[in-house]
């Protein structure tokens, strides 16, 4: 890709509302818009983990919800469950567990995952039932729509949409290019 990137950019900057792994001072922030029931996001999950391992403290990773709920009937509920777990301090544990159990995303599964993580499962069941976290999930979704997300997963590297392939090698190369760009 050329240096002069004029593609879509993130309209909602990464901030306190986001779930992030890594330091805000990292030279590069990778944002994923993803769907827990999407098979491609399931493929991307271990790749992102490997990219984080390769780049260490040079990378901050942020996950935002983009559930295609008409296509994936459990996706919105799963996203809400991750947000509910986040309220109890275990967003990433739930995020990982959902991607590792993409075949178990019905409400009863989500509650069982919460219990398995040592969370207050009754509270999560109640929050799922009343859709406490649905507005947050929709906010993520619409921020993606307005930023040019048109399918999942979609990645942004320092705010610019990553329009290339997203296997380990490509993502690492794209992040390293972004690091170089910040140094220049």
């Amino acid at each position, binding site marked *: 890709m050329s240096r002069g990137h004029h593609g*879509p950019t993130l309209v909602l900057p990464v901030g306190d509302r986001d779930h992030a792994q890594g330091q805000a001072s990292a030279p590069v922030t990778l944002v994923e818009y993803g*769907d827990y029931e*999407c*098979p*491609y996001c399931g493929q991307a999950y271990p790749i992102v983990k490997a990219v984080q391992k390769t780049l260490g403290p040079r990378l901050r990773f942020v996950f935002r919800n983009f559930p*295609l*709920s*008409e*296509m994936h009937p459990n996706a919105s509920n799963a996203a809400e469950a991750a947000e509910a777990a986040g309220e109890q301090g275990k967003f990433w544990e739930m995020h990982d567990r959902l991607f590792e159990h993409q075949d178990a995303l019905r409400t009863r599964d989500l509650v069982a995952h919460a219990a398995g993580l040592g969370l207050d499962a009754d509270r999560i069941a109640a929050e799922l039932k009343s859709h406490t976290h649905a507005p947050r999930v929709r906010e993520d*979704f*619409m921020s993606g*729509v*307005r*930023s*040019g*997300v*048109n*399918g*999942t*997963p*979609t990645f942004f590297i320092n705010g610019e*949409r*990553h*329009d*290339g*392939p*997203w296997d380990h090698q490509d993502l690492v190369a794209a992040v390293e290019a972004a690091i170089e760009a910040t140094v220049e």
Partner: protein
Amino acid sequence: MNNNEMTFGASQHHGHALQPGSRAPEFTLKTTPDQAVSLSEFRGQPVILAFYPADWSPVCGDQMGLYNEILPEFRRPQAELLGISVDGAWCHAAFATDRKLHFPLLADFEPKGAVARAYGVYRASDGFSERALFVIDADGVIRWSHVSPVGVNPGAEGILAALESLQHEESKS
């Protein structure tokens, strides 16, 4: 599935899609095997016309699937979304059922591609339309249009921005 990677190698459109300011050509097309819809039925509200090449694109979160998720945002300014391709009404019916689409798909089937031609977005060499978007105002005038490379899902941001600018103009007048 992310379609963006398909931008590489996709040819740019050099046709003559109708531009903003043009009157939107009237049409009547089947939405189901026994129902038809005319553009003029929607006079008084904005219409989003989304031409796409074909039903059954083999990706997750394809263009119609994405729009299906965003319908509440389209309908807030009372806009009606119409998908349109050269597929027949039976094919549309099966596709819409499979993808749980909650908006009409129009069959530009006989004579094939006639409406796409009228809007300047038919690919005669391929036998299907461009991926082209038109936002038509309440008076039937095209206010925004966009043609994407066929392999690229244009997303929804352009449509939402066009609908917002329509609303702003209305509130001023």
